[in-house]
């Protein structure tokens, strides 16, 4: 830190965790966040042979898989929307979310050589994962728009609502990414639990089918999935399907609570991180 005025740092074993100061400090390390994001993006596309192509291949494979199961085999009702387009619209936020949550889990353990040797707000590590994955979200949206053009869908003003829904998607990634990162440090079992939950999540999120198909008595549990409201919102914005504002509100509340609790838990764990990774 290069501050200009002399300041006093007090490290007291007996003092409580200074949550607000730690949050403020994370903002002060903005330049480091930028570099970590830059590194994540650069390295990901520099290292593999196909590079950038993977950001296309992953969501396309997921879409084709879900389209095969729900669109061809089960033939679910998609309100007259072509099933492939329907699934593609549904996958946008899920693809981002699963990538961030999948990456964030091991992120701190992966950076342990750094975490053990230099101090910086560790919350930046999962945060950088969530921010660098925005590139994937943009790529998926590009695929979606290419498909919209191919299906000759005309532009609707509601499509602009993709922007706030995307922002909400990013917040869901940050919120759950921070949780998964801290839980994985503390309980290594989470490196097995997370992929399992993500696999389940791909089928219990309304990606290739509509939330309306879920029986009413299970609907409340279904809506607790923070992505339900977002995915339904995407489909409303792009395809003009029916929109359930209750599930969106539930999503916003769940994401906010998870984010606040996640930051709180992470900062509480922060002082032990170097000792336990």
């Amino acid at each position: 830190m290069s501050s200009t005025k002399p300041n006093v740092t007090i490290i007291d074993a007996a003092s409580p965790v200074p949550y607000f100061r730690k949050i403020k400090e994370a903002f002060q390390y903005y330049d480091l966040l930028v570099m970590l994001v830059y590194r994540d993006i650069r390295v990901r596309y520099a290292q593999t042979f196909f590079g950038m192509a993977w950001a296309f291949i992953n969501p396309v494979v997921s879409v084709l898989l879900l389209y095969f199961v729900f669109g061809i085999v089960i033939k679910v009702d998609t309100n007259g929307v072509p099933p492939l387009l329907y699934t593609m619209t549904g996958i946008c936020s899920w693809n981002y979310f699963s990538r961030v949550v999948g990456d964030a889990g091991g992120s701190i353990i992966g950076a342990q050589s750094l975490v053990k040797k230099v101090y910086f707000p560790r919350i930046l590590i999962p945060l950088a994962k969530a921010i660098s994955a925005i590139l994937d979200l943009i790529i998926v949206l590009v695929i979606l728009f290419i498909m919209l053009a191919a299906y000759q869908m005309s532009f609707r003003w509601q499509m602009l609502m993709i922007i706030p829904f995307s922002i909400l998607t990013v917040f869901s990634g940050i919120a759950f990414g921070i949780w998964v990162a801290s839980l994985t440090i503390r309980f290594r079992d989470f490196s097995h639990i997370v992929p399992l939950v993500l696999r389940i999540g791909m089928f219990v999120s309304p990606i290739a089918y509509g939330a309306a198909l879920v029986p009413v008595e299970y609907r409340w549990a279904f809506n607790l999935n923070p992505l339900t409201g977002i995915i339904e919102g995407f489909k409303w914005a792009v395809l003009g399907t029916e929109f359930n504002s209750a599930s969106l509100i539930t999503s916003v509340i769940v994401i906010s609570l998870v984010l606040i609790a996640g930051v709180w838990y992470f900062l509480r764990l922060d002082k032990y991180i170097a000792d336990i990774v």
Partner: protein
Amino acid sequence: MTFLFNGMSAVITIEGVSKIYHRGKTRKSDLRRTIASLWSEFGASRETFYALRDIDLKIGMGEVIGIVGPNGAGKSTLLKLLSRITFPTQGRIMIQGTLSSMIEVGTGFHPELTGRENIYLNGAIIGMRRDEINRKLDSIISFSGLESFLDTPVKHYSSGMYVRLAFAVAAHLDSDILLIDEVLAVGDNEFRRKCLDKLKDVAYQGRTILMVSHQMAHLKELCKSGVYLDSGKVVYHGSIDDTINQYINRVNDSTSISVKDRTDRKGNGLVMIRKLEALDEYGNQIVTIHAGHAVNVRLELEAMKEVFNIVIQLEFYDLFGHLWFVCNNNMSGSSIIKMTGLKNVECHIPKFPLNANSYFMNVAIYVQNQLSDEVANALPIEVVPGMFYQTGRLPPPNKGVLIDYSWNEK
């Protein structure tokens, strides 16, 4: 808030600080344990140890202080607490001004990124702002001397180039307090010289430096005061020369006593090793040996009665148990025909031929071709880089012995 200390203000005040680590399984790192400990208090019992115990220390503004002590003494833990990498279990630390640490070389580097990108990444990691790096970029680049490799991914760098780049970035930190943990253990002598000079500059600017090193020469050159840590406690705090002397005496005491008191020895005991120490060319006891410097290994032997034809063999092993070389007085033709009572013997090694690493020495005494006394691991030997060759350059550590040679154009 100011802290007064000897008339000058203390920039670091450490009060009653302890750091406890849990040995073995660390803090509830698996789910099963946590669940188990929910209904069993016994599940939580773990072995604990103090990495630091009740440390009180005040460090004044502009002080350049060297921290010495054996491995595991708590030196690195102390720096980690100050840099907030880890948190004390007890006590309180007050730090006035900004503090940053020069971390182990290349820790923040990513091999896929270029030299230039790594300057920005590493700079940000150690706490520099982007505009600060922009401003210092030219100076960092010229210090590293790697102008023509800046756009090469650092995975293609040699280890020496890695060190240069990392140190160049770290040397441009301008925090009030700088923590240095063994940063100068690597690199060639020429560059190390440059780094030391840079650190001297930093010290002249009136900034506070805390430095951990096993290389006493560097500490003597840079520091004015010193702290000697052992088993998590401050054993001595004073001038750097006194601190180093205290440390060396303590180490020598413990090794020389241990040779005499060692019970795991072999042989018929006609002649026993009483004392064993390594001396530099001026006869000072040393705990580390510089590669290529003169070393005298002095032994004090005691014969129970008059004995004849005594052969002494020193064997130098690395920590994997590979033998590197042997010094045997019979082979070199300096026979000891006869002795009674106490006798001092010295083996002179004009240019110590091992590179920086940890080694140990076994000693064996033969009397008339019968093993009389043998002590394995009688003396631990820490070799640090030195001027074996006039250039000061050395091959990478742990790669063979060093020999004298010359090259000629024919």
